[in-house]
């Protein structure tokens, strides 16, 4: 009962916020609604028992992708009202394409067949008495450890490559040296001079 209620609530919010992403006039609002949509989708994943995917959605999409969108929207001077001007004139054509796509999806759904043995053949079914986070971890760090570590190496190469090809050390820039600052002593910094009145320090 509660799960059904939660499902309707999450999917309702998801659809509503997805709609708002498209029609909001202010792009910053669009991005914020997008974040709300991601959160609702994460809720749906939790209801399905896929906690890991839910977590991933929030960490990756909300934490990284959406924030990046926000940065881009705020930093680039894109006039979104201008972009949307042709909306009404393109509406009929767009509607036809959307209808065809929807029809195709319905046709696929109607002819979809699942083999009776498919359930038993799943490569990685969640074992009994184990959360799917645990099961995923076991697969990732046991069976797929070789692939996992290799992908780590690929990412390392990408990082080194980006640094090699873009980083330029500028010479002649004064940088703050914290150790030099902290290590400075009173004797080096202050010199006591005996100045007679009317003489100044000019030598």
């Amino acid at each position, binding site marked *: 009962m509660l799960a059904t209620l939660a499902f309707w609530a999450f999917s309702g919010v998801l659809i509503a916020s997805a709609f708002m992403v498209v029609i909001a006039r202010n792009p910053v609002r669009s991005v914020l609604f997008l974040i709300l949509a991601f959160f609702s989708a994460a809720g749906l994943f939790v209801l399905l028992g896929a906690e890991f995917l839910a977590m991933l959605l929030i960490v990756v999409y909300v934490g990284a992708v959406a924030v990046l969108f926000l940065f881009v929207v705020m930093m680039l001077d894109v006039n979104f009202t201008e972009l949307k001007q042709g909306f009404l004139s393109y509406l009929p054509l767009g509607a036809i394409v959307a209808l065809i796509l929807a029809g195709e999806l319905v046709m696929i759904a109607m002819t979809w067949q699942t083999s009776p043995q498919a359930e038993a*053949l799943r490569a990685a079914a969640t074992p009994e008495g184990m959360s799917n986070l645990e099961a995923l971890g076991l697969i990732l760090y*046991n*069976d*797929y*450890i*070789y*692939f996992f570590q*290799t*992908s780590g*190496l*690929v990412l*390392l*190469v*990408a990082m*080194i*490559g980006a*640094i*090699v*090809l873009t980083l330029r050390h500028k010479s002649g820039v004064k940088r703050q040296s914290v150790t030099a600052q902290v290590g400075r002593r009173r004797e080096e910094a202050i010199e006591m001079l005996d100045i007679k009145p009317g003489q100044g320090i000019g030598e």
Partner: protein
Amino acid sequence: MTADMLSHDLSLLTPELMLAGGAMALLMLGVFLKGAGTPRLVHLLTIGLLVAAGFAALFLTGDDGQAFGGAFVLDALAKYSKVAITLAAAVALLLALPYLESEKLSKIEFPVLVALAVTGMVMMVSANDLISMYMAVELQSLALYVLAAFNRDSLRASEAGLKYFVLGALSSGLLLYGASLVYGFSGSTGFNEIAIAVAGEPSIGLIFGLVFVICGLAFKVSAAPFHMWTPDVYEGAPTPVTALFASAPKMAAIVLLARVLLEPFGGMIDQWRDVIWIIAVLSMGVGAFGALTQQNFKRLMAYSSIGNIGYALVAIAAASQTGIWALLVFMSLYMISVVGTFGAMLSMRTREGMVEQISDLAGLAQTNPGLGWSLTALMFSIGGLPFFVGFFGKFFVVFSAVQSDLLILAVLAVLFSVVSAAYYLRIIKVMWFDAPEVNFVQPAMSIYWVTRVAGWSTLLLLPALGWMVYRAFSVGLDVL
């Protein structure tokens, strides 16, 4: 996975672990050591690391077997290729050091990227799963894209890097598309399981998938009609990087292609043999006729490498133990000659800087007889003139094709070999009979010795080759 299993699996991976761990350690060393000599130190240590990894592949990996649930395989083919790849990369690094220092490109990242690329290559020759195949290919290509553009202030090098990257990404896409089709129609990513699925009546989906996988890998070995990137990238990339491109990655990719075709898809030989047949003939043709009009030495070597990959594909089309043996012999001899030739190319330095036109070689035999003789021997060897070692490389390839009843392919291989001899002879003609125009400055010791040793080895390796033939045919072949 128990501790015993893990230690067994890891012992098979000794060279890979050494290379990956060593590359990271050297990166740390290079970052934390500050001083003018650091790049040189890291460079020399990386050469040591590569040689050590080659020895580890030969002596420390223990018995053959599979690791990580069949994702990784170690057999005679993998072991031999690993030794050849690490040594070729070590020699390429040896050639690179004086070049990088004189061109002010010496950075610690260069040797580290080479070490990581070699990690990818040694993983490629041991790949026994579609995922490990793709990951290894990506690891080596990504490092090579960066190396191609390493001279980032040069327009040509940046163009080469970008071109290589875009076309390489396209080929990775083809490879992945094929891999996903194969997975979908065989039900597994492991080569062992795919072999079982292929043994029955092969479905049209599997054939489609296989063709895409072949296309993706043909890009990596630069076989025609997927060769368009090769001349531009070879010309634009820094010369020692090109020396690396033409040797170790070629070996890794062609061995991977041979394994994919003969092990998981061995049951579909009737389907893929025609594809390989066509690619081989096209590559030999493009290599032979494309090189005839080239004026730039590096572009010429690019076409030469396309042509030579064609001969390697002839050996794969033979699809026999003899064929694989011939492939390994041919590729090893080719790598030795290529490294020597690039050493000669790196010796082409005048007071103004590097030159790379064929006309700059004019009269080399008079001005620099040692280099002239070495380059002459190397050109004879790559061209396959009897009785240099390169001739026997091609001879075994043709022999394996005849043995597998591929007579037309064998005849075409010989004909294209004759055509391609023309441009190797043209270089020799320029060296010996044209009037000298430019004087080269004395090259660095490492370049000097690599060129001389490679030059001499075109003749001195003949007894070793004879011994290999004797062993191969008296003990029997069991490479795969």
